[in-house]
């Protein structure tokens, strides 16, 4: 078996019908797996394989959507296999977004409950969440909706037993080992800790989604008054965020 025949890092192909192929690296939420997925996404994009329509990086796999009239499942596997060779799973620093976040209980609806369930004080919950270095593992579910890995273990909780019919756009919430940011109003069952005035999804921007898989995110606590002021600017399209770029 040559190196090129060998799928590194236990990657495997899964068939998702005749228009999508999954390249799966594992079944966990893990920074290393996420880095492999993003590295493969970049390689597939650069390879410009005829028939590939778009790719969707997720926590632990890359979904490749394709046109079956242009490329078959077997041909696509053969084209992707060499791209898995010596795939670098190094975690690049990417862009770093420092997003203002208001943890006031008026917006952080579940702060008190999370404090009670974790045995921490509300101030400790805010301190741990706002100092955590998060990484975007996936943008999905809704336009611009961001899944962040890197939640401190002390904050790990199941989802709420009774999901809300409406969680406001900008809500920052936690469940399991993750934090999420709701991009548009949506039903949801995550525990809401805070809200950011920054629009995660805004069609007046290109791209409309603020963050991409691989970006780093941290939260800067702000008061309710500061939130209101920034939210007003955001509605007017005048709140422009720029990410920091750093080397690893």
């Amino acid at each position, binding site marked *: 078996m040559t190196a090129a025949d060998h799928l590194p890092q236990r990657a495997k192909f*899964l*068939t*998702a*019908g*005749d*228009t*999508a192929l*999954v390249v*799966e690296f594992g*079944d*966990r*939420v893990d920074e290393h797996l996420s880095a492999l997925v993003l590295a493969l*996404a970049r390689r597939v994009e650069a390879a410009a394989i005829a028939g590939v*329509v*778009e*790719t*969707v*990086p*997720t*926590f*632990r*796999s*890359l*979904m490749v*959507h394709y046109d*079956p*009239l242009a490329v*078959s*499942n*077997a041909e696509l596997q053969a084209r992707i296999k060499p791209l898995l060779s010596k795939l670098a799973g190094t975690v690049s620093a990417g862009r770093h977004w420092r997003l203002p976040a208001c943890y006031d209980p008026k917006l952080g609806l579940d702060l008190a409950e999370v404090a009670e369930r974790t045995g921490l004080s509300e101030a400790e919950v805010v301190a741990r969440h706002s100092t955590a270095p998060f990484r975007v593992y*996936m*943008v*999905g*579910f*809704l*336009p*611009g*909706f961001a*899944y962040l890995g890197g939640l401190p273990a002390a904050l790990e909780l199941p989802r709420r037993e009774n999901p809300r019919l409406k969680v406001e756009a900008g809500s920052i919430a936690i469940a399991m080992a993750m934090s999420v940011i709701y*991009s*548009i109003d949506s039903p949801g069952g995550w525990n809401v800790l805070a809200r950011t005035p920054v629009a995660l*999804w805004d*069609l007046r921007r290109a*791209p*409309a*989604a603020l963050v*991409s*898989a691989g970006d780093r995110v941290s939260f800067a606590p702000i008061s309710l008054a500061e939130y209101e002021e920034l939210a007003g600017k955001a509605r007017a399209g005048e709140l422009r965020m720029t990410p920091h770029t750093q080397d690893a």
Partner: protein
Amino acid sequence: MNAALCFLASGLLTTLQDLGRVGYQHQGIPVSGALDPVSLSAANLLVGNPPATAALEIAYQGPTLVVEADSVRLACVGAAAPIELLAAAEGEHPRRLEMLHSARLERGDQIRIGAFAGVLYLAAEGGFDVPAVLGSRSTLVRAGIGGLNGRPLRAGDRLPLCRSQATDADEVRLAALELAPPASFRVILGPQDDYFTPAALGLLTQTSYTVTPASDRMGMRLAGPRLEHSKGYNIVSDGIAPGTVQVPGNGLPIVLLADRQTTGGYPKIATVISADLPALGRLTPGATVRFRIVGIEEAEAARREQAALLAQLAQRIVAVPRGARIDEAQLLDANLVSGMIDALAGDPA
């Protein structure tokens, strides 16, 4: 004055759809597009549009529309629906609008599409003049994008037309279009068939399911035997393909359709093949669904066959002779009448 179709009544769910918003799923943006792209393409063909032009997707109860243009050419394809045409008094010709036919309507003509089972597409020659959002005019109500202001059409809306009058092309009809559901819908197992018991895999293909009224453009919710998970029903979210059959904790399958979310965290037992998705999109609550497992090669062959059939649609378009004002030719074809007297022909006015 700008040409438009004006909505006097909205219907149950009338949205603009084309073939979808491709290339933005990594930003979490669903593809959307027509539930039945075959009927959409055929409707466009009848009015001389490229097949992917945005048209009205009309579900279950149609709208009432008034033509506010010098003239407009329309065509309806899809589930058979009662279509009433109230012609404006000053119209030139007796006119009607029927399924699988193009028809030129005049200013003031009113169309009323009644209650029916399924979806149909109403295409307008030249298309509708709304802006594309991220490359598509498909309406995604959940995100408020596409179509007219990102929402379903409602009473009082003016939906702008690209053309202010119809071309003087001959009217045409589609000689035949097979829209009946297949005896079974073909699926490919996976990507998470290993999350189910052998009994669940057997049930999927040996029993039938019923489409429930909770179905929508995002997913078709099925009722029937519960499919048992073998190792829980929470997986780490991964990508979702068109036609994915996902099975949440209650064991009842949901087939994900045009407005499907881009990623999801329930195990996916199988995926409906792309050639069978348009027929699936035409099903209505109460319909029976059976699944049959096939391999990837059969799925790919089926898709090629469907593409060939679509390519041949243009050859099945036949002209309706100009003299045959009330589609006399077709009535004669069907041997329904032995001859017709044109009531207006002898009218000196």
